């Protein structure tokens, strides 16, 4: 900018100096020549007076003398010529020897008009000469006095003139240059200031100010810049606040939200959506969604519905992204214009992973239940068929078969009982029949129930209760069910002659139940799955013991009902300990 101003300025100065130089040269030359002419003319008129006052002009010596005298003082060549062209006197040469001068243009002109002028190159002295001729009438006899001066002086003067002008121009350029730099600075500095200022604004920094005090256009510009800044700052702050609000609303949505334009470039995306698709890219807004979310089905779905789907209609797609299941809803975003043109697509993503997993669990449960029910039923039916087929008549065989049928029927009823129990607890969100009980009496009730099977397997069971612990607030049936299932396992998965010990401890309002046995133990890899429905470490053993695989999942549901905790410690061959913490002490 400054450069441009400076060069323009210099070119202008040079141009002006050139023009001025040419003009002044011409003026000076003209002036000099007219000066010469004037000098010649004035001396001529003096000589004219002198000649007129002469008595006899035909005395050639008189004229020659005048010529010599004046020539001497003025350095001008003075010549007298008569009408016939004869030279009557000359200040420089012997007039007698000079040729006839009647053909000289200044003389011809002078005789005709009274005054003549000419500039010629003189061969005799090899110089340019300026001639002025004046007609003199002396007693009716016309003669002419001619004055001449070499004007090569003019050339000398011209060179001098040129160098003067050149020096002048140089000085002018220097002065103008210095002034120009200052001038340019004066213009560009505020402009530079304004530039940095507006760059700051462009970067979003609204803190700066410009201090330009100039009382001119630039000052006005600076002022309007400041006004613009204030206005922009205000608008942007407002917009930003709105945006923050909008973002907060979007981000607090449960599902993810993405808005894309008609070219599938992302206009807006909520944090949830970013998390759902695990987007790590930093530049998301304005990017094509294909580059951000790389799911073929998702993008195909978007493309298929780009312009096809009708107004107000929603499209739904189920996709699997990594390990998650998402439901994607598309709806069109319409512009405000009367044409109701589609300006983009709104994508809402709902995480249905849990629902899917539940569905899957449910269907697994149903198939497990039918399988579990089928096994004893098939066996019952098989034995009945055999009995019908004749075995009934062999009393011994018949009794054995009936015993088996009895066991299988018992197992069926256990299973159905457990399933009913489980579904009852599952649908409960809170226990209803809560009351105040003595913990020890509950435990003795449990022992009464469990006693029979313990004796049968020769397992010793005993319990220990903290003295600080007497009353609990609980649903008695549920707590009993929980303890029975745990102790029952301790008996079932134990060796003959083993022991099961129940410890009840108090920690503030929490009751900690330890059910510890010295039985077969559980290998670590099974522990995490123990509480799944129908999960058994050893299917055969569980079945032989009349197990259903539901005992521990019932325990887990009961514990969840009271917001309690379960912990399992076990070592294969050494024994197992279940620790349950329930906030039920009072």
């Amino acid at each position, binding site marked *: 900018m400054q450069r441009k101003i400076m060069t323009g300025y210099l070119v202008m100065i040079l141009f002006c100096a050139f023009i001025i130089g040419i003009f002044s040269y011409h003026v000076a030359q003209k002036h000099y020549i007219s000066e010469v002419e004037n000098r010649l003319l004035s001396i001529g008129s003096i000589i004219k007076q002198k000649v007129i006052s002469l008595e006899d002009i035909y005395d050639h010596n008189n004229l020659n003398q005048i010529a010599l005298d004046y020539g001497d003082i003025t350095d001008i060549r003075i010549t007298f010529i008569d009408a016939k062209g004869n030279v009557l006197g000359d200040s420089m040469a012997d007039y007698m020897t000079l040729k006839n001068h009647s053909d000289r243009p200044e003389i011809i002109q002078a005789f005709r008009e009274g005054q003549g002028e000419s500039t010629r190159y003189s061969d005799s002295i090899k110089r340019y000469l300026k001639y002025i001729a004046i007609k003199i009438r002396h007693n009716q006899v016309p003669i002419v006095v001619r004055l001449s001066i070499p004007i090569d002086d003019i050339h000398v003067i011209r060179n001098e003139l040129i160098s003067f002008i050149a020096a002048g121009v140089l000085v002018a350029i220097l002065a103008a240059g210095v002034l120009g730099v200052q001038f340019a600075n004066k213009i560009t500095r505020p402009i530079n200031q304004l530039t940095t200022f507006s760059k700051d604004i462009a970067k979003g920094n609204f803190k700066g100010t410009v201090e330009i005090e100039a009382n001119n256009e630039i000052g006005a510009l600076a002022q309007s810049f400041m006004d613009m800044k204030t206005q922009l700052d205000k608008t942007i702050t407002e917009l930003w606040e709105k945006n923050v609000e909008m973002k907060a609303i979007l981000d607090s949505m449960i599902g993810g939200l993405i808005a894309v334009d008609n070219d599938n470039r992302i206009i807006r995306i909520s944090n949830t959506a970013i998390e759902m698709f695990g987007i790590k890219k930093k530049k998301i807004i304005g990017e*094509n969604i*294909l*580059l951000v979310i*790389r*799911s*073929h*089905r998702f*993008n195909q779905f978007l493309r298929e519905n780009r312009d096809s789907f009708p107004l107000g209609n929603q499209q739904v797609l189920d996709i*699997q992204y990594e390990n998650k299941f998402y439901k994607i809803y598309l709806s069109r975003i319409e512009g405000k214009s009367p044409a109701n043109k589609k300006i983009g697509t709104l994508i809402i993503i709902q995480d249905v992973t849990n629902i899917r997993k539940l569905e899957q669990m449910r269907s697994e449960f149903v198939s497990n239940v039918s399988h579990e029910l089928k096994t004893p039923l098939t066996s019952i039916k098989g034995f009945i068929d055999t009995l019908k087929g004749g075995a009934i008549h062999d009393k011994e065989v018949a009794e054995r078969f009936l015993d088996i049928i009895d066991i299988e029927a018992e197992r069926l009823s256990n299973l159905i009982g457990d399933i009913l129990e489980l579904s009852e607890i599952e649908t409960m969100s809170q226990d209803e029949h809560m009351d105040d009980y003595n913990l020890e009496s509950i435990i003795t009730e449990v022992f009464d129930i469990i006693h029979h099977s313990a004796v049968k397997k020769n397992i010793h069971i005993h319990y220990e209760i903290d003295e600080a612990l007497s009353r609990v607030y609980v649903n008695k049936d549920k707590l009993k069910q929980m303890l029975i299932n745990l102790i029952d396992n301790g008996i079932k998965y134990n060796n003959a002659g083993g022991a099961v010990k129940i410890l009840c401890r108090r920690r503030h309002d929490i009751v900690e139940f330890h059910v510890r046995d010295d039985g077969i133990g559980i290998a670590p890899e099974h522990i995490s799955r123990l509480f799944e429905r129908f999960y058994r470490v050893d299917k055969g053993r569980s079945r032989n013991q009349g197990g259903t695989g539901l005992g521990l999942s019932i325990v887990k549901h009961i514990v969840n009902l009271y917001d309690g905790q379960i912990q399992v410690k076990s070592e294969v061959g050494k024994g197992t300990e279940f620790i349950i913490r329930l906030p039920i002490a009072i």
Partner: protein
Amino acid sequence: MSIRNGFNASLHNLHLDVVEMASLVEYSIDETILALQQNNRALAQKVVAEDDKIDKMERIVENQCIHLIATQQPLAKELRRLMSILKMMTDFERIADHAADICELLLELTGEGYVKPLKDIAEMAVMARNMVKNATDAYINDDITMAVQISATDSSVDDYFDTVVADLQEMMRKNPAQIKQATTLIFIAKHVEKIGDHATNLGELVSCMISGKK
């Protein structure tokens, strides 16, 4: 200026198509993994059938590349990009072929009940899939560190392959009746390993496309 703009727009479209191709290929690997995990015949058939779509996409992208090189006089850097994309397309297409091959082998197997759970092979496939995914991510984000890291994963896929093969050989020795099935499984594992190799290629192509060094 406007010619150049047009060129940039075509470059961007090409870029989108490359990613499209990548996501198609990733999708087919995903489906292959699902088919492996769930022993899903229908899914395997679908993957085999959809391989044509990928071949078509490959041709489209290749033609686009060649058209751009021929008609637009790309600068050296753009030319390098276009050439890299051309090579990447081949790798992507080969990966999809391997996925389809795995599914074909799977179709021979299903119904027999596996000698060894396909878990290991499926896990290996997940690793290979992640390599492809990372290569694509590196391509999209011009991320050279990510591109360079891909080859490191390849050696773990190779290790996995070795253990799977050793397990299967052991099984064949113990139970010669299962030789046929075990061989098929070895073939499947080999294809997975190949996918890893192509993903490594992709990673190298991407890093050389970004840095310009071979």
